[in-house]
């Protein structure tokens, strides 16, 4: 039976509206995934107040991480790849935020255990976020690579989008720096994709997980 033209037109209109709505939804989702977190200027030299102190005679990578950020799971996965490729030439440590007023259980969750499972990685709690502030990190997954002389060579994330694993420029840069003989040159900076480590008003305004 032939359907009335009005009904058919209504369905065509609904279909177009549906396509538009779905398109907007996917666009918003993509924008969220590709929008990096906030970053601050990282110290050009290894901070003397940093704890624990950097490894002597070889590069040190520090990742400041939120213990419950789902995006950081991908960052840890990329760190595992870096550590595997580094073959013991890199001293890496992951500092998980432990905000004031929280217990150790709050911090030592699945991400803590995942990081601890990466060979060559030391996992520590960042009490009150003091280490993150020291390194200028405000977004989870922010990684900093200091060379053997304590100079900052890399600052940024090891993923290309929120929670998205796979090849990315940040990891490539770190691995390239590790392969580099002599360790001279500038600093590589990349965007960081993760949750906010703290809640300063300016960060809250720009970093939407």
């Amino acid at each position, binding site marked *: 039976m032939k359907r009335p033209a009005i009904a058919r037109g209504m369905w065509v209109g609904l279909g177009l509206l549906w396509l538009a709505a779905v398109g907007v939804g996917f666009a918003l*989702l993509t924008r969220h995934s590709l929008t990096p977190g906030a970053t601050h200027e990282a110290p050009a030299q290894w901070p003397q107040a940093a704890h624990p102190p950097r490894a002597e005679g070889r590069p040190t990578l520090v990742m400041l991480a939120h213990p419950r*950020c789902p*995006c950081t799971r991908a960052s840890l996965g990329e760190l595992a790849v870096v550590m595997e490729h580094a073959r013991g030439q890199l001293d890496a440590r992951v500092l998980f935020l432990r905000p004031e007023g929280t217990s150790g259980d709050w911090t030592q969750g699945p991400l803590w255990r995942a990081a601890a499972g990466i060979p060559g990685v030391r996992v520590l709690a960042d009490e009150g976020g003091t280490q993150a502030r020291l390194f200028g990190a405000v977004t989870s997954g922010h990684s900093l690579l200091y060379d053997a002389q304590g100079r900052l060579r890399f600052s940024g994330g090891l993923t290309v989008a929120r929670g998205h694993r796979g090849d*990315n420029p940040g990891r490539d840069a770190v691995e390239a720096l590790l392969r580099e003989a002599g360790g001279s040159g500038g600093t590589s900076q990349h965007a960081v994709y993760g*949750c906010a480590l703290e809640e300063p008003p300016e960060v809250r305004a720009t970093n939407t997980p």
Partner: protein
Amino acid sequence: MRLSEDVSGPTVALKERAVLLFREHLGAVRRRTDRLFAGLMLAQWAFGILVALFVAPYGWRGKDGAPHAHVYAALFLGAALTVFPIALARWRPGDAATRHGVALAQMLWSSLLIHLTGGRLETHFHVFVSLAFLSLYRDPWVLLSASCATVADHIIRGFLWPESVYGIVDPEWWRFLEHAFWVGILNMVLLHAGRGMRREMREVAVRRAELELAREREEEKSAALDRALRELSGFQEHLIRVEKLAAVGQLAASVGHELRNPLAAVRNAHAYLSRRLSRDVIGAADDPRVPQFLGVMERELGACAKIISDLLDFARERPPALQPCPLRPLVDEAIGVVPPRDGVRILNEVPESLPVPCLDKEQFRQVLVNLVQNAVEAMPTGRTGQVSVLAEGQDTGPWAIRVIDDGAGIPPDVLPKIFEPLFTTKTRGTGLGLAIVANMVQRHGGTISVRSEAGRGSEFHIHLPATAAAQAA
């Protein structure tokens, strides 16, 4: 076999019916698949929400957590991807637009689930599973539209955000062709399987059409047979009417013939008496022929009355008025009515202790009179003989009444016809006597039979059912 082609063998009606059945079946399959996808969409929606809640339940700002954007995406974008195809399946089931809408939504679900699982390679298999499910529509164009949606997604995302679809930052420009190749391979397999299924559906449709047409032909034959039976019944009724009219004519001729002789005798006697009385009324009293002719008139008019009475007995369909009727006195009455004949004895051998049956007295007396008179008349002239009436029966059993004579017997060629109306071997008689007997016995629910032997006599046997005795008791 392609139904749209002209092929020898199947008729045009068969092909048209088969095409109709095939389309109906295909439509039913597609509506069923619409319903399947409506359920699948709901399941995917629930699965997407669970994935979002499991993988990324919260986004964090320090120690403050809030639902992650993926949760909102699973809820609202998932709702959009679910509700529209369900609405299509609900309100436009079986439509081509519904199938293509479902296909597009399904492929977009693949994208969303891949996104919600952080681009896991395993989730990409959702694309292939979706294509397999979409092949249930048995519509190659649906697979094409779904594949085009997937390829377009790969091209667009490969250009804008290659890591989300290829997992690498800088893929080759032709990388989408590699993915499209595998999709194409799967499509070829699914198309091949779908074509086989459609071929089987066509064959089933042809077989169903053959069955339906055969059934319709049988129904037409049955209807024609019914019509023929009705016509035959009409002809039969007409034939019965014709036979009845013929019988009436024959009966009228027979009765007329039988009445003519006594009436002629009466007319002659009447003519003589008229002449005699007109000539000399007083002297007529002394004429000895006057009483002779008056006797002739009385006898012949009695014969006329008998013929008319027999005719009425045969023609009347009066149902028997059953009442308790002792049999032995009834046989005595019947014997008393039959004119005696020299040398012929009539014996009432009905036991006095016999239970009383339930009969129509008048009709059954007529039966006995006719049988006894027939037996008496069957005796050859100049020979002595005997007619016996016997009976036996019980309160709850059947009854038997027999009239036996030792006369000339009935010739075998005559025996089958003796109960037919108007059949007679006598020079005087209407041929209604035994027909009347048979009618009356039948009205009592009984049967009558005869056994005869040439030269040794005959035996008429009346068999009455048990109900007669039971009613009497």
